[in-house]
């Protein structure tokens, strides 16, 4: 039964072959292969993680952009509303100012009219008194004998003055 009795020579050569194979592969091949395989596995893991992160960021970015757009719309609406308010305000203000100005102008006019009236009154009075003086002179010169006649004269002159005016 040759199969069940190990041959010495075969055992010897098997050991030699295995030792050589192991020596060569363990020195030059396996550690390098294992290291490379693990490095690549890490690389792939990292790539997957990176891709997932990038996707998440992309999704986020979209949401952020939508939010930004919505905010911008909101601001736009606010600005427009403010602008309208400001415009109305300006118009209102202008209107008020114009009214005040107009009132001022009319007041000034009133004042100047009053002044002119007073002036003319003053002038009139002066003239009246001058006229009265002249009349008195004339009366004095005509030697009026009585008071009645004097009074009549005065009235007559006054009437004259009034009609003159």
């Amino acid at each position, binding site marked *: 039964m040759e*199969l069940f009795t190990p041959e010495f020579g*075969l055992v010897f050569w*098997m050991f030699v072959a295995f030792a050589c*194979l192991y020596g060569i592969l363990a020195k030059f091949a396996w550690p390098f292969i294992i290291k490379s395989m693990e490095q690549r*596995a890490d690389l792939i893991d990292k790539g997957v993680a990176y891709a997932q992160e990038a996707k998440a960021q992309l999704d986020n970015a979209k949401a952020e952009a939508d939010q930004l757009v919505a905010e911008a719309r909101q601001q736009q609406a606010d600005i427009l509303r403010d602008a309208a308010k400001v415009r109305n305000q300006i118009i209102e203000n202008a209107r008020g100012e114009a009214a005040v100005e107009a009132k001022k102008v009319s007041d000034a006019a009133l004042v100047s009219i009053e002044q002119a009236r007073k002036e003319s009154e003053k002038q009139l009075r002066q003239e009246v008194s001058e006229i009265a003086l002249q009349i008195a002179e004339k009366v004095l010169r005509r030697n009026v004998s009585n008071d009645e006649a004097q009074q009549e004269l005065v009235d007559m002159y006054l009437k004259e003055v009034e009609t003159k005016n």
Partner: protein
Amino acid sequence: MKKVITAIITLVIVALMVFGYWRAAQHHHQSGPVNPKEIIYEHLGDAYGWEIPFSHDVRIPLPIIVKGTDGWHCFLSSSITDGQTYEGYAIAHGGDHNGKVVQVLADGSQVRPWDFSVTKNVAAIFVAALIVALMVFSVRNWYKKHGMKAPRKGTALLELIVDYVYTDTIRPIMGKEAPKYAPYLLTVFFFILTMNLLGLIVIFPGGANLTGNLAVTMTLAVITFFVINLTGTREYWKEIFWPDVPLALKCPVPMMPLIEVLGMFTKPIALMIRLFANMMGGHMVVLVLMLLIFIFTGMFGAAIGGVTAVFSLAFTLFMLALDTLVSFIQAYVFTILSTIFISMAHVQPHHEHE
């Protein structure tokens, strides 16, 4: 086009079958009735010289290296395989050393010398080692050349196997120590796998029943035994000689230590027997199925023999396919069990509840 190719291949196979059958029939006429036992053992056993494909008589000569009582001798196997005696050495026929080189002494008695001959099996071992080296270096060179790019074609297949054995088997079992022992375990795996598969190829670089030979599996098992026990931790040895069992089981009569010591040896022996029996069994079934053709032809004539051939071939094909699977499984089992045994020898002091 595919159909034409299939038809041509089928025709070639059928022609080869007919040719082989005719050759076998002629052989049968020349040498009398078949002797199944002899044929089986001839195929399963070792030989001096390696038959070239499809010929039973032409052999590739291999060196014979022997050390007898008169010192070292080295010559080619072709000088003795045809029954001659060369420098006092011949191949024994019958007797204790049937089929082996013996030294024929002056008084005609035969003595077995120290036989370091490069037999068919030894040559096949070196062929297998060479193939393993080439395969592994092809993967390594890929990484050297292409860096992190994924390998293609054959290299990808090899890398898949390496990945399966290392990442899915060795690393989960060994943990941190995996890179230290992976070279040994991976070498064992690929060496066994290659030897298994080479054994299934019936013609020249294959055809040697390597892992179905006890010497080969024994060598592997002994190496694993030494790796297990030489790297064992103190805790491992403590568990063998002073295990954690009631005192009565270990103090006056060292029952548990005895069982543990026995276990040290049964583990590698189980490895050795498992691989050997599986591979040899597969080869033997294939050989018996093939021999059925010739046995039935001898008993019932050519017609029955022809019918048997069809069934035998079908079953043989099935068995060979099964053996291919078994080749993988056994290489894997040997590796995974070695891994487990080595990692078991690296136990750290117990945490409770474990």
